[in-house]
């Protein structure tokens, strides 16, 4: 497929990248390109300027925050890097587990965590997972840095808090504390295909957090179910009872794969499975 003519730059520093994104209307950051290149083929997006982040080594690191309380994942870290990271394995292994189910090997090799969340396709894996884990997102502009929560970051279908002249640089995920467990479950098209509905959950000393994917423009926190589980009873019967009625509170889209009613049902089932998986791991 031939793409429309496009201006291109490959800045050497984050500052230069931000300057380019600020100076040019219609400039887009190019991360791994696994979504952007394909939407450019389809003319669904036609950026005038591509700002290739490939040389920004500081965005390609996985490390711990100074106080060790958070795993810091650079926006240009690929899914394959997440899967093989010893830091992720120690601090939040669910990230590697989920990364290994995204698309296929070739796309995992090129696709980045930052690209995945900035696309914010409602069927993407990371948005509900990072929402459940309580991740924060660091966005830089010429004016400085700001840090936002998942609720503030994911704004709509393909829309995030990253606005013109800004760049997502880092995603911070709290490190797993003793007694904490994470789970993610969903129904996919094919073994590692697109989710029809999914849910991510984390349980621990601070209670339960549950986030549902594929049912709205942004991840939906199942707050009522979280509150029902606040007393700490995470037996299968208790989790099923807490989830009862969750599907009816959702208003998902219908498509050729699942109508709204079915997708709501799948979301409720996914939430139960994710919480039970997280609870089992919290004990282990």
């Amino acid at each position, binding site marked *: *497929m*031939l*793409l*429309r*003519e*496009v*201006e*291109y*730059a*490959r*800045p*050497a520093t984050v500052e*230069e990248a931000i*300057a*380019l994104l600020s*100076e*040019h209307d219609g400039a887009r950051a*190019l991360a791994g*390109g*696994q979504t952007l*290149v*394909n939407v450019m*083929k389809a003319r669904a997006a036609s950026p005038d*300027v*591509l700002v*290739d982040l*490939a040389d920004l080594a500081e965005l390609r690191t996985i490390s711990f925050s100074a106080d060790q309380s958070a795993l810091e994942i650079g926006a240009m870290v690929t899914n*394959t890097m997440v899967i093989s990271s010893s830091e992720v394995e120690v601090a939040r292994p669910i990230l590697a587990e989920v990364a290994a189910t995204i*698309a*296929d*090997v*070739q*796309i995992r*090799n*090129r696709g980045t965590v930052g690209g995945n969340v900035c696309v914010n396709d409602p069927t993407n894996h990371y948005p509900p997972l990072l929402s459940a884990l309580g991740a924060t997102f660091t966005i830089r502009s010429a004016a400085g840095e700001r840090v936002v929560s998942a609720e503030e970051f994911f704004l709509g279908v393909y829309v995030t808090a990253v606005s013109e002249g800004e760049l997502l640089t880092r995603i911070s995920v709290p490190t797993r504390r003793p007694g904490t467990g994470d789970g993610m479950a969903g129904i996919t098209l094919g*073994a*590692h295909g697109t989710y029809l509905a999914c849910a991510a959950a984390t349980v621990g000393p601070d209670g339960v957090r549950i986030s549902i994917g594929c049912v709205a423009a942004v991840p939906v926190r199942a707050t009522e179910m979280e509150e029902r589980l606040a007393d700490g009873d995470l037996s299968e019967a208790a989790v099923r009872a807490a989830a009862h009625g969750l599907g009816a509170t959702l208003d998902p889209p219908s498509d050729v794969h699942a109508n709204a009613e079915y997708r709501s049902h799948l979301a409720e089932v996914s939430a139960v499975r994710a919480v039970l998986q997280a609870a089992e791991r919290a004990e282990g």
Partner: protein
Amino acid sequence: MSTTTSTTRTISVVINGTSYERDVPASLLLVHLLRDDLDLTGTHIGCDTGSCGACTVVLGGEAIKSCCMLAVQADGTSITTVEGLASDDGALTPLQQSFHDHHALQCGYCTPGMLMSATALLEQNPHPDEHEVKVALQGNICRCTGYWNIVEAVVAVGEGGAS
């Protein structure tokens, strides 16, 4: 102070051991650089949407889809295409020989991509089991549906290497 933008860029890339320097449009897909500019037509275009894997090449040791990457993004990298597998005298790699022995191709359209995905797998994991092979080939579609022999061929290479 800012980097300038341009619709073209001079890139240097090593492909199958040969260094190339080319002025390319920023809009050029890597697969078109390979096929149209460098005549390396062994790399196929199937779906052109990142689904089928016919365009798979090995870049920096990793399998990637060359239809989902711009040629300018490959600047400074080292790439192996299917033409880089057999030696100059035509001797097949153990993987290619195994595809031959196990009848792991029917129409052959997906074969270059299958070979490159499996080549990357075997470099990282010389003795993959059946499940590992299936995961590694998940991004490669065979519309003849000849998957069984393909998986057998790749597993057999690993078993041969172990003996």
